[in-house]
């Protein structure tokens, strides 16, 4: 499937659908495939960081560098699996698991105080000092009943975010 000029067969589409737990319809997958090929200018079968950053709306996102580490070297199947967290057919729990993964870049299944600090650093940049960030995070940690040395698990994330009205949906344009 690395060949960008090839068309998707029904088998390919079904395979991709299987891989992303049917988060996308067949039409949406075809549409995503066109998009994938459009972004993969060099035709290498994956989208390089540079190619992702050529989309200005993506490049200006404060989390773009972090997301690039997750997106690096994904082939089309993995690319769709990545995006499946944003499908309307994906459960809230899967969406929260995705957010967890954004924090847990080392894939150890735990998110420490420092992991959250580093995301907060991406989100606030130079507009908050390190002390202010520390203070804010310590405050909310204590309020939620965690101490600074506790590492949060997926279950904790679900507990914290599960009750909120999480809106994380992206519509795939189908023509």
């Amino acid at each position, binding site marked *: 499937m690395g060949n960008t000029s090839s068309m998707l067969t029904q088998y390919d589409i079904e395979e991709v659908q299987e891989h992303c737990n049917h988060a996308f319809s067949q039409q949406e997958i075809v549409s995503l495939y066109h998009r994938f090929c459009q972004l993969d200018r060099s035709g290498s079968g994956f989208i390089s960081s540079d190619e992702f950053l050529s989309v200005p709306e993506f490049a200006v996102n404060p*989390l773009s560098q972090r997301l690039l580490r997750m997106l690096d070297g994904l082939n089309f199947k993995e690319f769709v699996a990545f995006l499946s967290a944003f499908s309307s057919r994906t459960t809230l729990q899967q969406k929260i698991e995705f*957010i967890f993964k954004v924090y847990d870049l080392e894939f150890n299944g735990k998110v420490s105080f420092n992991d959250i600090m580093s995301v907060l650093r991406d*989100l606030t940049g130079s507009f908050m000092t390190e002390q202010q960030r520390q203070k804010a995070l310590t405050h909310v940690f204590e309020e939620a009943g965690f101490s600074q040395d506790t590492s949060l698990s997926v279950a904790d994330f679900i507990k914290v975010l599960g009750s909120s009205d999480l809106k994380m949906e*992206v519509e795939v344009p189908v023509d």
Partner: protein
Amino acid sequence: MVVSTEADLDRPNIEEYLSADSIHEPLMNLQLRDLLDLSPRLSEAAGAIVDDSFTRCFKSNSSEPWNWNVYLFPLWCLGVAIRYCILFPVSVSILAIGWLIFFAAFLPVHFLLTGTNKWRHYIERALVEMICSVFVASWTGVVKYHGPRPSMRSHQVFVANHTSMIDFIILEQMTAFAVIMQKHPGWVGFIQTHILESVGCIWFNRTEAKDREIVARKLRQHVQGADNNPLLIFPEGTCVNNHYTVMFKKGAFELGCAVCPIAIKYNKIFVDAFWNSKKQSFTKHLFRLMTSWAVVCDVWYLEPQYLRPGETPIEFAERVREMISARAGLKKVPWDGYLKYYRPSPKLTERKQQIFAESVLKTLEK
């Protein structure tokens, strides 16, 4: 072909065009969930990966195939044969004859009538208009011009949306405009430096900061002169696919003179006139146009606009863009076309960070 002045080239100043897009609801009481919930930012990022307005501006839209039918297919084949075996050679000979006449007249005029001869300017202008008509004829151009023709007058500048270098040719065949343009390599560059100079065209290199200063100065001098050909600027600075308009560079709107908008809309029934300069050389682009049945387009000369009291050049540019977009049926996007060549400025990211940081800090104060 591009316009530009001064500092606005170095840093695309999009932030001035964007409204506050992502203002968070004021947080009443900071909770862990507010910090952990990355969903708005992640959705934005994923949305941009799936589809973004910037890339859409530069996508060539391939035409729908219509020939896959037993009855239509032979017709289509016949069409191909006519287009490539009859129409194309005819186009080439028209071009060749046109150039022969052009050079036969241009060279003697250019070298014999020296100095600031009024006749020389007059003849050269007529010849440039003639060769542009030849070009339009070579693609069987069907161009409808609406509105009053531009006249020679000082203190006015024409601005148009930009789809391909052929915009210039189409406009030039009616009026010999002086154009601000990007310097091109190859034979196009030769025409620029040797022929278009005679109508007062100014060219520069998009990436050279020094060139820009010179252009800005030349620009101001040019609009003051009464005898100069009217100035034409493509303020988008890059070719867009004629479905969208990208941000207008403010250079043309700071000259303190009348801005006359021109809207150009191509009909894609026979060929897509968008020149994707990163994928295609201009020669190939012309070949595509010459082997198509026709290039159909509408040109509207709109009413001159002036800077309103209290209006900034950027607001003025946006107002004119709105007029052109409405007339030609184009969608506006808040992006700088130069992002094709540069990464967006970190300022945009910083603004998003600032908004979030401020909302967090506010709750901390309480």
